[in-house]
């Protein structure tokens, strides 16, 4: 039973919502626009929204100075690698929590989340020393391991909230048919859980892509992702707004596009079981 809404009301809604939407989006739009300005125009005291001499020189400059494809590949490998590894560890855990809950389940889940509250800088030196001894400094393997651990609590929780929505009767039925635990997992649950796993994966790829503490501290060149790429454009000598904007656009565009294309799944993923 849809409620009746007058055209006027609808138009007002549209205008207000678009207004707020553009306001919130504006910093990103401004960054993208600035990346096409010359440095002098970028700091002009009379800034202009569209009426300026569009130029690609900042992108050329950034590309000639930095090996963007390598940073990009590292970001992809680290983000995807850590989430895949995280899923491998988290799917069984979340499955067990959802279908074989015990008194401790809630405590374990909360404990996992609480590990995320610890300031990483407090354990920086120990981790650095361990990584040095294991030869993991500036390696993708090392970074994948760290980011897996960083995001594991979120992954477990998201999966748990999805799995919990899968009705237990289906499991019962499968068990009646004599399905083993393994086949239960593979044939019954996984297909039902795929949308949940997909949104979990998306959100955590984004979180891993944007992680800017460990990725900056533990990498130098071989494993350096886009966060490191951006760091080399922050406050150099001379005018830099336009180059910074170009580099920023290049660093956020992949995730922005990924996020936009998959936003339906993502919004589902963002609910963390908040909506029944």
């Amino acid at each position, binding site marked *: *039973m849809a*409620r009746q*809404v007058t055209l006027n009301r*609808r138009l007002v*809604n*549209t205008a*207000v919502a*678009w207004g707020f*939407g553009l306001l*919130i989006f504006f*910093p*990103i739009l*401004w*960054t993208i626009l600035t990346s096409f300005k010359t440095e002098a125009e970028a700091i002009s005291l*009379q800034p202009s929204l569209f009426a300026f001499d569009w130029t690609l020189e900042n992108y050329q400059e950034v590309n000639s100075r930095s090996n963007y494809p390598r940073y990009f590949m590292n970001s992809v490998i680290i983000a995807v690698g850590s989430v895949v590894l995280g899923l491998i560890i*988290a799917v*069984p*855990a979340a499955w*067990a*929590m959802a*279908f*074989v809950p*015990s008194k401790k389940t*809630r405590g374990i*889940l909360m404990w*996992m*989340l*609480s*590990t995320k*509250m*610890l*300031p990483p*800088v*407090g*354990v920086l*030196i*120990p981790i650095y020393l*361990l990584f040095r001894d294991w030869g993991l400094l500036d390696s993708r393997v090392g970074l994948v391991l760290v980011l897996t651990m960083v995001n*594991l609590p*979120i992954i477990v929780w998201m999966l748990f909230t999805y799995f919990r929505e899968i009705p*237990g009767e289906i499991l019962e039925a499968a068990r009646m048919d004599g399905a083993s*635990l393994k086949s239960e997992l593979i044939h019954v649950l996984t297909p039902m859980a795929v949308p949940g796993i997909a949104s979990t994966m998306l959100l955590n790829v984004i979180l891993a892509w944007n992680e800017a*503490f460990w990725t900056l501290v533990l990498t130098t060149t071989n494993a350096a992702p886009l966060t490191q790429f*951006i760091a080399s454009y922050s406050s150099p000598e001379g005018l830099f707004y336009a180059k*910074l*904007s170009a580099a*920023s656009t290049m660093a*956020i565009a992949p995730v922005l596009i990924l*996020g*936009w294309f998959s*936003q339906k799944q*993502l*919004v*589902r993923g*963002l*609910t*963390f*079981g*908040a*909506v029944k």
Partner: protein
Amino acid sequence: MSTTHSRTAGKAMISPAVILLFLWMIVPLVMTLYFSFQFYNLLDPVTSFAGFANYEYFLTDPAFFEALGNTLIIVIGVLCITVIGGTLLALLLDQPMFGQGIVRLLFIAPFFVMPTVSALVWKNMFMNPTNGLFAFLSKLVGTTPIDWLGHHPLASIVMIVSWQWLPFATLILLTAMQSLDSEQIEAAEMDGASALSRFFHIIVPHLARAGTVVILIQTIFLLSIFAEILVTTAGGPGYASTNIPYLVYMQSLLQFDVGGGSAGGIVAVILANIVAIFLMRLVGKNLDL
């Protein structure tokens, strides 16, 4: 339905995650604890036993209480803005309109931006009191540009962080709102309930669960806000925008005082656990896990 067999299997399935996380937590923590009792400066290879001296120095540092307050202000400030703003925006987005899909894309975008990038962009291109866009706008209306980072450092950081997290809150609350039974609202409308009372008596209770999730997840991230401070104000002026993680960072990486930084790290862990306990109480009530 849980048999002994499935219980054992369940344990086996949970343990890898638990063991790995435990190792990830405990190994560095034990090392940090050890360092916190040492006089250990990275630039000085000689270390010696310090007793509680590192803790004493960290806890009596005038910066400590300021940082503690700032940490709370950031968490609470951002939570208020995002939860209230998110609810209002969700209400708005829930209305029928043209191009809802695209508007949603606009709203969600800040969430995809790296914290370092957003901090750099806000600091340089918006908040800079001479070349920033805010300065331009205030000159346009004839007022003196505000020196955001110099005079309102903490408010500026709250603003930047809120911008990043507003989409998250809005979208979760929107999804919750959309799951609301419209018949319930219509029934209330029939009974002559005003829009305001409909909002407070039907919508708000319905959103409680989603709101809890927003608060929980955001608090986890907000407690360790770091990149935004490092890039914009570097904790200053004075200690005006230093929070606990940043204070620990100053000890460990600006002063290279590993002993002091470790003591600070342990204090931060204890504080985080206190917050965690409160948070878990709240969550437990609203999130029937």
